[in-house]
């Protein structure tokens, strides 16, 4: 396995007058093909970390390396290009474009990348079939259920063959049955395509199905647990009192 992401002394501070430290010197290495979950209380900096990795936000200090490229100081155009090429996003809310059908929504990252419409459609149909929506291709988001929309969002996140898929509470808005379905889908895709998944979640059941769990409190990683068969073992010290 090779390192796909390396984070060194990452720091993010918000605010001008009263400073709020969202991330406090975080060091983290993520391997290719890993399924990683980040847990922690609200305001612990989980989403901030995810936005940094997702190139949606820029660090105040420290470095992020993506596939050996230091992207902490990349221009907004370069970051947009990398988001399109290397990253796929799944949010708590599906954020599908309401005017567009399922297949058009999945085509969108490819169209942004400049892929021919016909080719993009072909790829989108394949993906929708894979997430079990082969019969709902032309339905718009308001004609689909919450779980179905989230599956469209998964298909969209995968459309551009990203090396990393980022999920910010991807099942946070779904019932447990739909959540399981989404998670199984992600896991299956991970096994088939060796994509890296980074998930922020409140759902400990889901976190426990991943390969590694990071617990974030006050902008610091306070605990790291690694899967060992059916159990998790803690690495380094785990400040569970926090």
């Amino acid at each position, binding site marked *: 396995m090779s390192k796909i992401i390396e984070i060194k002394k990452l720091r993010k501070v918000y605010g001008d007058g009263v400073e709020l430290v969202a991330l406090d010197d975080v060091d983290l290495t993520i391997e290719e093909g890993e399924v990683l979950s980040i847990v922690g209380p609200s305001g612990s900096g989980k989403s901030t970390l995810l936005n940094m990795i997702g190139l949606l936000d820029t660090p105040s200090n420290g470095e992020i390396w993506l596939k050996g490229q230091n992207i902490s100081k990349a221009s907004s155009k370069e970051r947009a290009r990398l988001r399109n*090429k290397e990253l796929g996003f799944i949010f708590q809310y599906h954020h599908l474009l309401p005017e567009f059908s399922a297949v058009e929504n999945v085509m969108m*990252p490819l169209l942004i990348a400049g892929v021919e419409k016909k080719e993009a459609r072909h790829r989108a149909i394949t993906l929708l079939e894979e997430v079990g929506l082969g019969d709902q291709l032309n339905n718009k988001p308001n004609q689909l259920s919450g779980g179905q929309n989230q599956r469209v969002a998964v298909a969209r996140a995968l459309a551009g063959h990203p090396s990393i898929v980022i999920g910010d509470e991807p099942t946070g808005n779904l019932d447990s049955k739909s959540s399981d379905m989404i998670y199984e889908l992600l896991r299956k895709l991970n096994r088939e395509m060796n994509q890296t998944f980074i998930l922020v979640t409140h759902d400990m059941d889901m976190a426990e199905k991943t390969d590694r769990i990071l617990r974030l409190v006050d902008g610091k990683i306070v605990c790291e647990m690694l899967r060992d068969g059916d159990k998790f073992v803690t690495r380094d010290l785990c400040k569970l009192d926090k």
Partner: protein
Amino acid sequence: MFELFVASKHLISRRRQTILAVGAVALAVAITILFRSLINGFETTLNDIIFEFVPHVTVLPEDGESYIHLYKTLIETIWAIPGVVAVSPALSTTASFAHDDNVENVVLRGVIPDELNKISKIGSDYMVEGNLDSIQNGRRVALDKELADELEVKVGDSVRASFPDAKTMSLVVTGVFDTGGFSPNYAYVSLETARDFLGEGNVITDVQIKLDDIYQANEVASELSALGYNAESWQSQSGIVETIQSRKFSNTMIMLLVIVIASFGIANIMNLLVLEKTKEIGMMMAMGATSSNIRRIFLIESGILGLAGGAAGCLLGYLISAYVNSLAIAISSGPRFSVILTFIVDPWDLLAFPLITLLLSIIAGVYPAHQASKLDPVVALRG
């Protein structure tokens, strides 16, 4: 192109706003086109009148003089100018005409009927009774119809012409013409009769000239002025063309303002759209859309609204103009000369207005598009 794909979807799915924005621009453009076509029609009608009635160049006596002497030399000089198609000398004076108890003041003009006819077609096109040539034979007169009606005379009757210092004489009416109000109180006699009436010799008071090309008039007038004559072109005599032009210009400016306002309705719609689409803009950015992609989506969108509005307005304006034109509404009439409300759509307008509205709508879209493009994706996604 992904931007066009998104923009057109927005427009189609927000049908009501789209129709409203396009409709507002279209209405403003249609009214402008209709108005301009009316002015164009009016201008054309007026030009026709000028071509038919008004001499293109008039030579008058020098300042301080009452008459032009040695006019035969002048006429020869005029005929020598290329492009001259008619030269009509006249001896003009004011006179009182009396018939029974009716007395009217008239403009009495001694003319050569053939030459006058070439200037204003009075003899060939506007006679309602008798003819113009008959005035050549002694003490005869042709009158404007309004004047004849006031005096209660008809062909065959006599009128008594008099004026202080002039010789009172009796004239037999041999012709009545009706120009629909373009020659009120005009009475034509032969040059000889006029000279006899005034007791003058071989003199005239003016020469009217008609040209092949009316826009040559200023040139011909200055040529004659250079030879020492007092010559004026129709342009310098009547300010009506300038009046129409300036009216057309100022009204077009006002209409343009209306179009600008309608186009900036698009800005309003785009602002609302950007607010409404904030999360989706964030998502598109997450998917890799750059700021310029986002900006382009909204510029294309407002551009389409403007272009569609302009084109629809042109079509609407054209159709209304054509329809009203086909009604042939008469606003004044004479025997031959009836002024009909004409609408002439300038083809350039049909090209220019969609381009103007396209440009305006793109300008209107700049600010909302800029607002959208500089959204922070993290903030936008949070909504």
